[in-house]
């Protein structure tokens, strides 16, 4: 299984995916970190069957809410990663599908964020959601 945390550490709640990946790494679980740019994601998950991507999202739900989507059900209106390049996770999923490069199973853990300003602090609700996400993924991996 490949676990990828996305985001930007300088932009408040957008660091959520990166922190989850780092916490899992510290607990001895292999993870990768990236900005969330589409081609980079595709390169990382190429040849992997089972992938988990963790990223900050904005859907309009309550801050700190943890969403879990299978790639096929990723809602179109979701804005994934504030450090947008206009070409991120949603595009990576679509393009991988078109090119036949989709992992058999790809799940997205989306942590609802609110504060994405440069050098902003991470919201307390997002810090709690990070803890919950780490525990959930650890439980899943270690059975």
């Amino acid at each position, binding site marked *: 299984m490949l676990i990828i945390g996305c985001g*930007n*550490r*300088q*932009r408040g709640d957008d660091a959520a995916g990166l922190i989850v990946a780092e916490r899992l790494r510290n607990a001895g679980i292999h993870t990768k970190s*990236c*900005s*969330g*740019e*589409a*081609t*980079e994601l*595709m*390169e990382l998950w190429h040849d992997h069957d089972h992938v988990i991507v963790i990223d900050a999202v904005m859907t309009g739900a309550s801050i700190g809410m943890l969403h879990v989507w299978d790639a096929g059900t990723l809602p179109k209106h979701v804005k994934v990663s504030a*450090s*947008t*390049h*206009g*070409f991120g996770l949603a*595009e990576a999923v*679509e*393009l991988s599908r*078109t*090119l036949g490069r989709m992992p058999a199973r790809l799940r997205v853990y989306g942590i609802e964020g609110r504060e*994405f*300003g*440069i*050098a902003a602090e991470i919201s307390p609700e997002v810090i709690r959601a990070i803890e919950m996400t780490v525990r959930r993924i650890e439980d899943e991996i270690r059975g």
Partner: protein
Amino acid sequence: MSGRGGRTIKVDTLARVEGEGALYIKMAGDRVADVKLKIYEPPRMFEAFLRGRHFSEAPDITARICGICPIAYQMSAVHAIERALAIKIDPAVRLLRRLFYCGEWIESHALHVYMLHAPDFLGYQDVIGMAKDHRPLVEKALRLKKIGNRIVHLLGGREIHPISACVGGFHKVPTKRQLQELAADLEWALEASLETVRWTSTLEFPHFEQDYEFVALQHRDEYPFNEGRLVSSHGLNIDAAEYEDRFVELHVKHSNALHSVMRGKGSYFVGPLARFNLNFDSLPEVARKAALEVGLRPPVKNLFRSIVVRAVELVFACAEALRVIQYYEAPAAAHVAAPNRAGVGQAITEAPRGILYHRYAVDENGLIVAAKIVPPTSQNQRRIEDDLREYAAHLAAWPIEEATWKCEQAVRCYDPCISCATHFLKVRIDRE
């Protein structure tokens, strides 16, 4: 939206540009009444963020400004600080920095040419639609970009926000053997880039030429990355230290990115087209020949042909990377010492999208007391608006949807990186 005697072109979210922006054009009959390229990405606070930090932190902090061109930020930062500290780097480090920049240009140009720009010419909304019918093109782009990533990863420690560049050199340098392992991939990339030049030259380009003032670095015997005088097609020829005497950033009401203008003149044009037009003779023969074979020679004044010029620069970046690999011998030390010393230093380097200016003032403890960063997109922004003023007038008779689409395409020719271009904005509220 059409109104009596006038119409408005409005694009709320510009797709396929880095960052977020919006565009507003107001027409009165066939006359363009107003053009506004709006930036609403959260303001950039990096200049303030840098003050009080040690100069050694600047390369890593500024690399975070952009996920697409972090090398450019690192290179302008290290060169400006090395100038402030009066440090001379090892020639082998200089070569490695050129290779580092090659990696970033390959990544960035492959992404823009194929993933962001090509759909405009082939009539698709985005690369996902294009991939259904042109799978080999997208596969080629992904492989090219991966090769650029490999270079950045080897030299920078990781692809995004690399951490290895430092004031005085690198924290760690590769062995010659490690570089040689890149050669086979780069040979393939060079061929793929030559094919890219031929392919892009067959696209159809709108007839739109302007009398631009092109501005780029110029070096005596190299296509420019990190060094050179700043020159223009209209006679400018200055050192980086004179940049702020000749250019000034203005705040405009509708955008929280600053517009950079030439003092007493106005807009100017930076990026691949400017570099190509001002440095054609410095391109390696393989790139010059590729350009001439498809009828591309300076001055290229059609904005839409920038996709072909980017492809020529891909050829250059691959050829230059191979040259560096051939001549590189690892330096005795990865970096020279950078002791604390008070000083001011400026540097201009060529980011994929055009010149990136940095200035730092540091005190005797090595702490940054002032920082100034002028990204390429804020330098092109006034030029983009000027182009749209002309181009929208050409499109006055077109149906509104098509005219809107054409204007979006014109903006994408600049490959604007809007998330780099926003600075902190001081808000003033007037009350009566």
